[in-house]
């Protein structure tokens, strides 16, 4: 997602490319902007944990499955990446409930917002009159709008849970380990991994991590499973997976006591005392990972400051014009490449006909169209996680796990080229 003035060069419209995944570097940069200093960063962390625990409870009360948490925690974290914590820090419950509400919609659970709000009040033990609750509802709806713009109305979304189940079946992971990994997945939602990686990758990370934990705790009942993620079309480098597993384990260092993993270990009648789990199990695994701490290769760091996308969001930006949301970088670049020829055509036309629409770009002042900021030079160190879907050269997970099924009756499934422009 990038912001830039539209092709006409003046701020009539804004172009915003959807960017559902960001690199670690980009996330760090964004949080540096939104959190500003260490004390705010600490406050963010504390509140995030508080709200996430609250949302877990709320979901239970409302009888929703935990998979709702994926979208919910994703949106919550994204919100504070692009909005100043100094300004919105005290609205953390509102941000959380709005994130939950959007996640419900996205997962096709239709619940009235007023109901979600009243359950939230009950759970927090706050008394509120119906009018107060309705006021609150309106506040949350305007917050929902902010979220939607932030996400460029991009609703593409793949459940990690679905993929985890498929992969676990495919690799014949034993039942108990499946249960452990399913539980740990609920912890993964609270990390920054879903902000960085698509769901198929995260499903592999959970599966691997849970196997490591299981084996560390069951030395005599080790599960020797070769998880070759390439078989399920997850083409990640080994060090990428290892780093992600490591990042996931970090979560338990300070959140183990309240984690889903702890509950699962208890149910599996395994050792649960935090001293053992953290000092022996988790740290042992971490040491075994031989993780690669080097920052990605020799890439020179990008200057993210120049890119409007990495600035705090200004919701007024669309007030004077329109905001255009883009889902495909390539399509946009193709479009931009046609501007030059269109310019000629347009000036010929213009000689003959009056302007049709008042908002058309003033081609006479034509400047080279500024591509959405960050679009053409968006070569991130890693090719896949932080690019938008279509420019992602890995197939999306839904499409990949079909054992290369190629029905023969549909020979020309490829997209036909777009209609030529002069047709």
């Amino acid at each position, binding site marked *: 997602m990038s912001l830039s003035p539209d092709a006409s060069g003046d701020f*009539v419209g804004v172009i915003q490319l959807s960017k559902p995944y960001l690199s670690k570097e980009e996330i760090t940069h964004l949080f540096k902007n939104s959190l500003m200093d260490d004390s705010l960063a600490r406050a963010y962390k504390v509140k995030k944990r508080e709200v996430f625990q609250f949302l877990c409870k709320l979901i239970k009360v409302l009888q929703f499955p935990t998979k709702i948490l994926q979208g919910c925690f994703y949106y919550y974290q994204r919100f504070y990446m692009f909005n100043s914590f100094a300004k919105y820090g005290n609205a953390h419950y509102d941000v959380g409930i709005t994130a939950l509400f959007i996640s419900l919609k996205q997962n096709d659970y239709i619940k009235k917002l007023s109901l979600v709000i009243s359950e939230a009040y009950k759970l927090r033990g706050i008394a509120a009159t119906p009018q107060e609750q309705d006021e609150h509802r309106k506040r949350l709806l305007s917050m929902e709008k902010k979220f939607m713009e932030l996400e460029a109305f991009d609703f*593409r979304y793949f459940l990690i849970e679905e993929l985890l189940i498929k992969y676990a079946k495919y690799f014949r992971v034993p039942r108990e380990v499946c249960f452990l990994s399913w539980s740990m997945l609920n912890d993964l939602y609270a990390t920054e991994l879903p902000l960085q990686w698509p769901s198929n990758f995260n499903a592999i990370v959970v599966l691997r991590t849970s196997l490591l934990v299981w084996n560390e705790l069951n030395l005599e009942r080790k599960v020797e499973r070769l998880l070759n993620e390439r078989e399920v079309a997850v083409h990640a480098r080994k060090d990428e997976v290892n780093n992600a597993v490591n990042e996931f384990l970090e979560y338990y260092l300070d959140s183990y006591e309240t984690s889903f993993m702890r509950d699962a270990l208890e149910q599996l009648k395994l050792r649960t005392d935090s001293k053992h789990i953290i000092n022996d199990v988790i740290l042992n695994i971490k040491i075994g990972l031989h993780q690669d701490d080097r920052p990605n290769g020799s890439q020179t760091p990008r200057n993210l400051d120049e890119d409007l996308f990495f600035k705090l969001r200004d919701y007024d930006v669309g007030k004077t014009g*329109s905001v*255009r949301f883009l889902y495909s970088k390539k399509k946009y670049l193709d479009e931009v490449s046609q*501007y030059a020829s269109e310019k000629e055509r347009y000036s010929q036309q213009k000689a003959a006909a009056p302007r049709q*629409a008042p908002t*058309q770009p003033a081609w006479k002042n034509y400047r080279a169209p500024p591509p959405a900021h960050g679009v053409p030079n968006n070569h991130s160190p890693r090719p896949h996680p932080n690019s938008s879907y279509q420019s992602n050269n890995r197939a999306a997970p839904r*499409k990949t796990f079909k054992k290369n099924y190629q*029905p023969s*009756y549909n020979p020309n499934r490829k997209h036909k080229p777009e209609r030529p422009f002069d047709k």
Partner: protein
Amino acid sequence: MSTAYTKEKKVGEGTYAVVYLGKQIATGRDIAIKEIKTGTFKDGLDMSAIREMKYLQELKHQNIIELVDVFADKEKNLNLILEFLPSDLEMIINDKKLMIVPADIKSWMLMTLRGLHHCHRNGILHRDLKPNNLLISPEGCVKIADFGLARSLGMPNEKLTSNVVTRWYRGPELLFGAQHYSPAVDIWAVGIIFAELMLRTPYLPGKDDADQLVVTFQALGTPTEENWPGVSHLPNYNNLTVYPEPSRQELRNRFPAATESALDLMCGMLALNPNNRLNTEACLLHGYFTESPEPTEPEHLPKKS
């Protein structure tokens, strides 16, 4: 609107949106602008709009309408930019001046099933297939549109609402109020569309929900425990008159122009028991599509006059 598109005339109105014709300025391409009426929503952005965006963002196929862009304008209205598709299958069926030959029907069926196969293999149910939602491009290609009711398949134990699909195209499991159903509901609808293309008139036009049950079972037989084990436990299964399934000869009389394999395919799509219904793959591999005549090339299909 914006610098990238012009908005010209209104071409349609749906439940939650108004559709306009426009142009993408850079490419001169015709586009449709579906303006979502955000102002009227009680509970934030409407589910239909979310579904439509979500599934069109996820699906790319030559027989599925393409979502080009999404725009928020000054008034914060949402605009979906779609490829412009000037006609639909309903217009063609209703245009009595048009002559439709079996090869044309085969071509429309093939394109519809290809698009639907793409939905299903990506775990997405359309749930509102009908001739009016099968739009047709200037080149004659069928494009499945209107994903406002679509949803992903979900887990096997998840409850779904049976209040989907326009009445005439609703499969028996939906008529019985089943809360678990499968891609087979879409296949039923395509089967009914197949029949409608041959008849040039709606096949099972029930007057209301109760009548739909009667009309459907009179035409195709009443499901029983014998041909559909478990059916009697579905919510609306009660007080049914048991009609026999139509004989082969009866079907031949109903569809005089249909070949034997066309009838086979239709029966496979209209199996009462959803578990016995063909899936998209089986439909596409059916002998009907390989026997003569070959499906008409899209550009040679009859067009709205």
